């Protein structure tokens, strides 16, 4: 801001058109309104090159801060470094960056999201007979390998740690969009009708898995555990067909809001915490009241 009373300009960058990022943007907008800053929003559409273009464009436009979820911990450093050396404050959310110039990093630990669902699954696993648990995983390895991997290993590690039974991963495939996951989960269920549970690492994967289990007529036998909280998934949890068991949702609104807030406070010269973990919320079938409450909060 060249003139004193000109509002701060903050660029918010997301990398995908999905519900999670939509809500993050809403959080950003709310914070921008509350703090009276001008917000510009961009989407890199999962393309590292496009991310660079966006960062460069905003740098030239002369924004005061960039609030971004970098596409890659390493590959995204370069452009942001440039922005930083041009005097722009960089605030990270959702995904990390291997650099120490960012003002703050707000995230739900991806590993922790997995762990949270994993812990919920552990309770269920204890109730099963036999000492081998057969698990299928739907991830997004060819989309965002780093995040996908963190969520999956968070889940598996926690599950393994909290049970004496053998946890066997019978299948790990990609499926992050509903219709894509539906097909893949359908195929997996055919190959392994005896699996005990499906873990899906994002919203689309979870929706697809639930519908696949329903289509296959395996409701009640195969349980689904997921990541991300949406109205549709909450509905699935409340359904009486006993398919979806638990999801851990991030709190995207809070992440978005807090990220912009952190940027503003930094620009105002206040100190901000280097790393902020916004905890996930666990929604469980056993706790319908909690689900209702979460739905009401939205």
């Amino acid at each position: 801001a060249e003139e004193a009373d000109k509002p701060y300009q903050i660029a918010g960058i997301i990398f995908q058109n999905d519900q999670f990022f939509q809500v993050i943007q809403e959080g950003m907008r709310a914070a921008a309104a509350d703090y009276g800053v001008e917000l510009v929003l961009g989407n890199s559409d999962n393309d590292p090159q496009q991310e660079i273009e966006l960062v460069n464009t905003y740098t030239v436009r002369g924004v005061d801060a960039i609030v971004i979820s970098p596409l890659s911990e390493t590959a995204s450093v370069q452009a942001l470094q440039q922005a930083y050396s041009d005097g722009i404050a960089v605030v990270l959310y959702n995904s990390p960056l291997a650099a120490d110039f960012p003002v703050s990093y707000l995230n739900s630990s991806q590993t922790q999201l997995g762990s949270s669902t994993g812990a919920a699954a552990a309770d269920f696993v204890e109730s099963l007979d036999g000492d081998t648990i057969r698990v299928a995983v739907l991830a997004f390895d060819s989309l965002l390998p780093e995040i996908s991997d963190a969520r999956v290993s968070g889940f598996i590690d926690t599950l393994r740690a909290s049970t004496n039974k053998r946890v066997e991963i019978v299948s790990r495939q990609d499926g992050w969009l509903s219709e894509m996951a539906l097909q893949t989960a359908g195929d997996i269920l055919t190959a392994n009708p005896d699996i005990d549970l499906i873990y899906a690492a994002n919203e689309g994967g979870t929706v697809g898995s639930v519908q696949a289990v329903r289509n296959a007529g395996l409701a009640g036998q195969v349980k689904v555990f997921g990541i991300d909280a949406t109205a549709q998934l909450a509905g699935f949890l409340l359904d009486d067909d006993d398919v979806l068991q638990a999801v851990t949702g991030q709190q995207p609104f809070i992440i978005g809001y807090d990220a912009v807030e952190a940027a503003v406070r930094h620009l105002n010269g206040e100190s901000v915490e280097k790393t902020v973990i916004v905890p996930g919320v666990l929604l469980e079938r056993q706790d319908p009241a909690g689900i209702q409450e979460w739905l009401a909060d939205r």
Partner: protein
Amino acid sequence: MKRPRLEQYLMELILLALCVVFALTAPGFMRTRNLLNVMRNVALQGMIAFSMTAVIISGEIDLSVGSAVAFAGVIMAWLTQWFTSFGLPLAVGIPIAVILTLVASSVVGWTIAYMRNAFSVPTFITSLAYLTMLSGFANLITGGFPITSFPRWFNTLGGGSFLSVPVPALFLIVVFAAFEFIMNHTSFGRSIYAVGGNAEAARLNGINVKRVKYVLLSLTGCLAGVTGILVASQIMAGTPTVGRGWELQIISAVIIGGASLAGGAGRIRGTLIGIFFLGVIINGMTLLNISQYWQLVVRGALILIAILINNLRGLTGATRT
């Protein structure tokens, strides 16, 4: 017509060989449930693929189908929600929504033909522009969030079965039969081949070239609409992210089936083989739990090998420029 039968069915044989390999190696591949599953999976892209075959035979192309699927699903969910907000019972609202969605989808297809006929804008370009535009509209309508306005029973359309055959597979069979009939046994079908083979000659032979394009592109739009509704029913939501990248997969299936991008040559039966070929590859590799990355490599390689074997015998229309 006078070719030895075996050679003519080479692509079918390749598909069969693939199935045998998977039957021997992939757990559960031969189970009835799995085969029905494959049918359900290929049904969605398949319907569009038949129509796309006709479009490609006529010398045009439609790259917007993937986005059109998302667009239709979103419109469907949004209309349902809107009708419900008026207190219209779902049993009435949903059929009306279906009809309106199909009309909208057909009109979108029609406009691609309109740009071609009235302004000579190649369908490649218009549909490429629509690919982004329809996706943009689908996002605008939903605001990026899935619209989950459907009642439980709506799932039957995409997820249900009739006499244990998945409903989408029934759709596939009907659409296949219709196109097979149109392309091979009607005068209109001949016009399509003629237009693609030589549009000017077709026109001078008294064929209404523009009408052929209007019909085919509207039909493709309509079938993308049907597919969009089925997908929405499967995932019980109207989501703007579905259908992404379908256009290239569908075109792959058509070309594996022997159609020529230059127009004038291709068979609906070939496309049926093409979509099953792709569907079986994906299903088999998933059953085998092959890593995502290897799947990409193997899928590309299998497509190439299939076309190569087919071309070596000089049998497919795909050999034309």
